[in-house]
């Protein structure tokens, strides 16, 4: 079944970041291999007189090819420290990218890049009032998540681990609790995923999608890794829908034999 975000049906549950690829061409191929229908983008204050550097981050290069991919754009508010900054950057993103979707990031700590809930919640409230579909990047704290829903967020994006760490799901209990307490809310694990196994784990926990960037961009072969994550996310989702068996403490024979084979 498709994932529905504010009336937009998504058949891929893989949200892909666009930063850090070896080249725009590799990024383009990775998006195609991932099957992603949602890709994240950012905004940057321009340097004076158009001195904005080159590489995969050069605006002309990447933006035209991302547009050509046909994926929905999900701009972020990376780098923001206050609700005011984040709201302003979101307003700019809406104009620049032509979307009311915003990945709301308000970071409170340099070392962990941990979201600051005391800025995040009021920023989300203001953006919802202004008509944005807010995708809040948050921790796995249940109460923060509930407050974000209270102010009008329709989905949540709790971290698996700190951004770019590749540690996987460092607190599966908290994520499982979120799933159990918020059964009808679209939940996306955002950040910390390092390998396809982590993505499978997130999907088997019942999360609705996974957002990742570094795990693909930093692979030796980002295009192949994008495909690996695509398959992993599909497998994990299928497993969740199928129902994973409950672990047993001891062996339980699976072959229906009648006692021992020989009555000797």
């Amino acid at each position, binding site marked *: 079944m498709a994932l529905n975000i504010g009336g937009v049906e998504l058949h891929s549950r893989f949200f892909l*970041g666009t930063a850090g690829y070896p080249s725009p061409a590799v990024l383009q191929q990775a998006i195609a291999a991932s099957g992603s229908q949602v890709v994240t983008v*950012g905004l940057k*204050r*321009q340097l004076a007189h158009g001195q904005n550097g080159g590489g995969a981050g050069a605006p002309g290069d990447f933006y035209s090819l991302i547009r050509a991919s046909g994926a929905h754009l999900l701009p972020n508010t990376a780098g923001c420290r206050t609700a005011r*900054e984040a709201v302003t950057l979101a307003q*700019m993103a809406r104009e*620049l990218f032509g979307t009311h979707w915003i990945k709301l990031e308000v970071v409170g700590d340099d070392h962990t890049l941990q979201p600051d809930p005391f800025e995040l919640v009021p920023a989300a409230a203001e953006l919802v009032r202004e008509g944005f579909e807010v995708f809040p990047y948050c921790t796995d704290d249940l109460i923060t998540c509930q407050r974000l829903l209270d102010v009008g967020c329709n989905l949540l994006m709790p971290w698996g681990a700190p951004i770019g760490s590749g540690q996987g799901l460092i607190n599966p209990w908290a994520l499982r609790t979120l799933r159990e307490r918020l059964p009808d809310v679209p939940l996306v694990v955002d950040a910390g995923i390092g390998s396809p196994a982590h993505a499978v784990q997130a999907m088997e926990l019942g999360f609705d999608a996974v957002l990742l960037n570094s795990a693909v961009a930093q692979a030796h072969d980002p295009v192949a890794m994008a495909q690996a994550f695509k398959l992993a996310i599909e497998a994990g989702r299928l497993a969740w829908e199928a129902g994973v068996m409950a672990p047993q403490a001891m062996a339980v024979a699976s072959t229906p034999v009648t006692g021992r084979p020989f009555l000797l």
Partner: protein
Amino acid sequence: MTAMTPQPITLNGQAQSCPSGTNLAELIAQQGVAPDAVATAVNGAFVARDRRTQHVLQPGDSVTTFQPIVGG
């Protein structure tokens, strides 16, 4: 201040001067930047594209322009 008197502003953190009465749309055009290629803020507040013409710059204003980049 009379019309066309140079006034100090900053553009993306760099000191500049522009004639008094200059509006934000004119400043962006002077940089050779297409109007829809950037989003703009003055003193940290968003100024929408269709409001730039009405937004006359004042001495000491800090103008910031933002462009699309890759992101996670």
